[in-house]
């Protein structure tokens, strides 16, 4: 297995970074330069490249490399893909010079080699020399647009206002508007850019490709733009790969793969298209094709961290264990309604697999019925115990702070081992992601992001393994501050957040919206909307057809609903905060009587708050400090029933319940532990014994199987447990096999000896 060290895009020092990386040659890629700071000689070479005369263009650049000096020579080396030489020449040119153009061109080299933060720093250095230097401002905005913040949009809006003829600004802003699916605005910007291009005799290729992207988002054929572009430059593969991006942001990975295949057919040297083709083949589980194209991308551009990391991920995928489960219908076990392929890291496969299977089967049964959709191909569920691997799996997907991601039929997420114990409720995350599989595939990925996330959050709250429906304090503050987006603009909160934490707020808003619709008009209204989206309709139409409301009217009703649900809390948020401060002071003073009273007050104001900063645990501690152990335990049980799932607290509850021999109440708490931290041998062993004692052999088998998978405890106990579960199911052969396995690892294990003797006597 290869090392899991990921290439980093961060830069330790500005000028030293390029020297640290052993840069060499890089295949020639067509880059369109809209700025006028390039020399006339190099622009003449560029023109040859723009029309597809690649050989002539390369000769032209080579001539300039050997005959010119300074910035022109560096630009020639960069155009030829000789990164090392270009870097040296830019550095030499920058020495003792205050010319912002040099820093800007040098920064472009960093952008070309995917070192965005380094590029940003150099653009900023250029702006130190000239704060209004347009190419550097544009470069900075371009670098920022590779992240997902709203800064680039703001900057570009300002630049286009100040410089309405800047082609590059218009194009960069159009790209962002297209990502937000603001198509009329994007088209307007592109048309303005096209006018400027014609006047300035610049190539229209990128504009054609972006128009094709807009057409694609409107479900129109892109052929006219493709024909125009290829007529201008027969090697312009980006006319396919640029629109493919808009398939990806609308989750249509299979269609994106088709376009990337066309892109590399037109220009086999297009490293980024090979990379994106590989990444998206991986998303639709075509592992071999993915590896081929990623290797092609690596040969052409070995400096792309996304390519290198994904190739490493492929090596790791080869080591993962894949199991297959046929899902029976909930009504008729003889009917198979779908197949699930589960890919788990071998290190925690045994411990996790029984739970993943259990939840996946339930989810497929539930969502098939809930959304009137049957899986058309196997669903793949992947859990990564290395968060870096999961990160690579999610690369290039818009959005931040994800725990899981779904690419159509493929769902990937962190395994509980990837994070600190109790950091997230993995069962709830898996439920959320599988809901995506159904809603995305039921609409052929035609639903807006807000609705897909909204339905998943709605399902998490109403049918998932965690009963919690806590709104974060950030969400409450956002409601209070009127920061919620109108339903028609809710996608912007996910794709281009304008304030810190807006993505999480948008998740909550989407979930509340779906929940409100289901409560007010019934779950069938959500299904109706889903079907309307599948017919390529927008949010306004979906609302109209499902609940006969215009978006604005819906927004009004939704805000009224929020006011009914949370109005009293929202109107006293400041008071809530003041009580929290009093509580903190009382804790510092060990004034447990006041702590009890204040924490109970906070719980009364907002009972659903069970996560960070909740008052239940404080109240329990206050009760304990005053000698009221019984009340403390009851407080913790209330917290658990509302969805509290801190594993350390759950273990504490379990210990207390067991000490009190309240075994029936222990079981659900232990089950909750496994959905957060399924690696406790004691929990699996206890639950296994419990399920045997109440004649539930399948659940007992699940627990002992998980115990076996932990590999930190006696395998003899686990096999013996499975043997007894088999006995309860009247599976004598299986029981004999398991008891032999048990004794094979512990030949003097008396309980297993006795079972073997009884099985032998029974013959």
């Amino acid at each position, binding site marked *: 297995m290869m090392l899991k060290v990921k290439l980093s895009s961060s830069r330790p020092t500005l000028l030293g970074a390029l020297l640290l990386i052993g840069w060499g040659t890089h295949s020639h890629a067509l880059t369109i330069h809209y700025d006028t700071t390039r020399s006339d000689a190099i622009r003449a070479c560029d023109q040859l490249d723009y029309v597809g005369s690649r050989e002539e263009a390369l000769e032209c650049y080579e001539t300039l490399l050997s005959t010119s000096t300074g910035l022109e020579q560096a630009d020639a080396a960069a155009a030829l893909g000789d990164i090392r030489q270009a870097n040296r020449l830019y550095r030499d040119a920058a020495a003792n010079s205050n010319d912002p153009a040099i820093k800007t061109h040098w920064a472009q080299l960093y952008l070309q080699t995917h070192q965005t933060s380094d590029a940003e720093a150099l653009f900023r250095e250029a702006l130190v020399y000239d704060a209004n230097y347009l190419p550097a401002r544009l470069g900075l905005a371009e670098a920022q647009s590779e992240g997902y913040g709203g800064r680039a949009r703001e900057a570009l809006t300002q630049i286009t206002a100040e410089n309405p003829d800047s082609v590059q600004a218009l194009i960069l802003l159009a790209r962002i508007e297209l990502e937000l699916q603001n198509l009329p605005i994007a088209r307007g910007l592109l048309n303005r850019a096209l006018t400027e291009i014609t006047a300035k005799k610049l190539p229209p290729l990128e504009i054609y490709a972006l128009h094709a992207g807009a057409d694609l988002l409107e479900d129109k054929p892109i052929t006219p733009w493709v024909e125009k572009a290829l007529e201008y430059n027969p090697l312009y593969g980006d006319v396919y790969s640029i629109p493919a991006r808009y398939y990806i942001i609308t989750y249509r990975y299979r269609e994106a793969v088709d376009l990337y295949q066309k892109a590399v057919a037109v220009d086999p040297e297009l490293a980024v298209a090979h990379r994106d083709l590989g990444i998206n083949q991986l998303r639709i589980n075509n592992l071999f094709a993915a590896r081929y194209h990623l290797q092609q991308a690596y040969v052409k551009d070995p400096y792309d961290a996304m390519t290198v990391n994904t190739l490493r991920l492929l090596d790791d995928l080869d080591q993962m264990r894949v199991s297959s489960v046929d899902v029976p219908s909930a009504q008729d076990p003889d009917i198979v309604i779908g197949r699930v392929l589960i890919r788990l890291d071998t290190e925690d496969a045994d411990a996790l697999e029984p739970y993943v299977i259990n939840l996946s089967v339930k989810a497929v049964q539930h969502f098939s019925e809930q959304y009137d959709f049957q899986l058309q191909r196997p669903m793949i569920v992947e859990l990564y115990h290395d968060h870096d691997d999961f990160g690579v799996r999610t690369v290039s997907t818009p959005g931040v702070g994800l725990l899981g991601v779904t690419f159509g039929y493929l769902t990937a997420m962190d395994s509980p081992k990837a994070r*600190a*114990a*109790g950091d997230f409720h993995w069962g709830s995350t898996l439920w959320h992601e599988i809901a995506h599989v159904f809603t995305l595939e039921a609409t052929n990925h035609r639903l807006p992001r807000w609705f897909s996330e909204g339905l998943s959050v709605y399902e998490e709250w109403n049918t998932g393994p965690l009963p919690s429906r806590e709104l974060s304090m950030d969400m409450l503050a956002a409601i209070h501050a009127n920061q919620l987006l109108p339903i028609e603009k809710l996608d912007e909160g996910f794709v281009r957040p304008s304030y810190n934490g807006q993505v999480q707020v948008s998740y909550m808003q989407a979930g509340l919206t779906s929940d409100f619709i289901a409560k007010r008009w019934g779950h069938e209204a959500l299904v109706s909307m889903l079907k309307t989206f599948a017919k390529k309709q927008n949010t306004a139409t979906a609302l109209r057809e499902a609940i006969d409301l215009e978006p604005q009217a819906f927004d009004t009703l939704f805000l009224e609903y929020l006011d009914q649900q949370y109005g009293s809390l929202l109107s006293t948020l400041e008071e809530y905060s003041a009580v929290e401060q009093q509580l903190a002071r009382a804790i510092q003073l060990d004034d447990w009587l006041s702590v009890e009273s204040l924490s109970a007050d906070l719980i009364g104001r907002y009972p659903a708050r069970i996560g960070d900063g909740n008052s239940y645990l404080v109240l329990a501690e206050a009760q304990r400090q005053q000698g009221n152990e019984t009340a403390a335990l009851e407080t913790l049980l209330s917290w658990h029933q509302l969805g509290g799932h801190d*594993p*350390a607290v759950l*273990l504490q509850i379990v210990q207390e319940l067991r000490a009190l021999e309240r075994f029936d109440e222990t079981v659900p708490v232990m089950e909750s532990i496994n959905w957060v*931290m399924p*690696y*406790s*041998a004691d929990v699996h062993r206890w639950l296994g014994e419990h399920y045997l004692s109440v004649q539930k052999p399948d659940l007992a088998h699940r627990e002992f199987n998980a115990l076996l998978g932990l590999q*930190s*405890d*006696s*395998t*003899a*106990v686990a096999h013996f447990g499975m043997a007894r579960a088999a006995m309860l199911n009247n599976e004598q052969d299986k029981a*004999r096999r398991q008891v*032999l396995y048990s*004794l*094979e*690892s*512990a*030949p*003097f*294990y*008396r*309980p297993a*000896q*006795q079972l*073997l*003797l009884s099985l*032998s006597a029974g013959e």
Partner: protein
Amino acid sequence: MNNAWLKSALIQRLRTVVLEWFTRGNQLLKQLALSMLLGLLALPVWAENYAVVVTGLGGDAAYSKQFADTGSAVFDALQTLDIEDDRIVFLDESSTRDSIIGAIEAATKRLAQTDSGVFSLFLIGHGNADTQGWRFNVSGPDLNTQDIVAALNPLSSVQQLVVLAASASGAALDALVQPGRVVVSATKSGGEINAVRFPVFFAEALRTAESDYDRNEILTTSEAFRFAQARTVEYYEQQNLLAPEHARLKGDNSADIPLALLGSLKNASEEPEVAALLATRLVLEGQFKVLKDAKSDMATADYYRELEELLLRIARLQQSIDLATGWSENDAES
């Protein structure tokens, strides 16, 4: 008192069993019979066991108590190996560098008079490391790595176990490892300086049958280490803390160095009937190990058929032993 009675019974029983194997066992088992016989007789469980158990300075009452509890657990466990009372020495918090070295030297002199033996050293307490190596904190000058190496040097001909149940003890690992010696440290390096939890779980391993993974009623060093290491990892996971300690075990034969006898072996008397049964059990265990070693060379069906047959014999024999020793389910933990 020593375990010669059991060794004698074992030799008697082995004669019979090996003969039986040669007449009815398959060719593979015949070939392995002799090595099994020799292997069983060479097990350290039959050797004379000497030990020095030291608890270092606690620094505060809680640690002093914890170290004393752990030391007692080790002492009690080693007693079950039927060691003569004066072969195991327990030095409490008042011990000094000189008294520890003296105790090791005394054991060395006695071991020199035997043809085989095992010497174990347990250092339970706080430690620290610097460029000179690891130091075990005791009253007066600390006991350092060089002291331990020098004191153990004359014992090179006997099997040794050194357990450094103390902070930063990983710093001494490389200096102590040598052929014929198993070394356990509570940390992987001298940089892990926090007070360690590993010894607490090591003591727990000596007190519970749960750590006897193969349930043969002989708790070995490797089993106790596995148990304690797993519990330590689980402890930090449950506390949601990055583990500041990573125990290490180096050296061969840790699976053959016993720390305690459990269950019927622990309770066994010198009655000839019980001795004969236990001897037979040990022989069957030897057969079991031979069969397991041969697994990869056998057809799966043949292997499990022979395994089942052997396991049934072991199970029936165990019933007889339990009857003879008065062992009952109530004596078992799991």
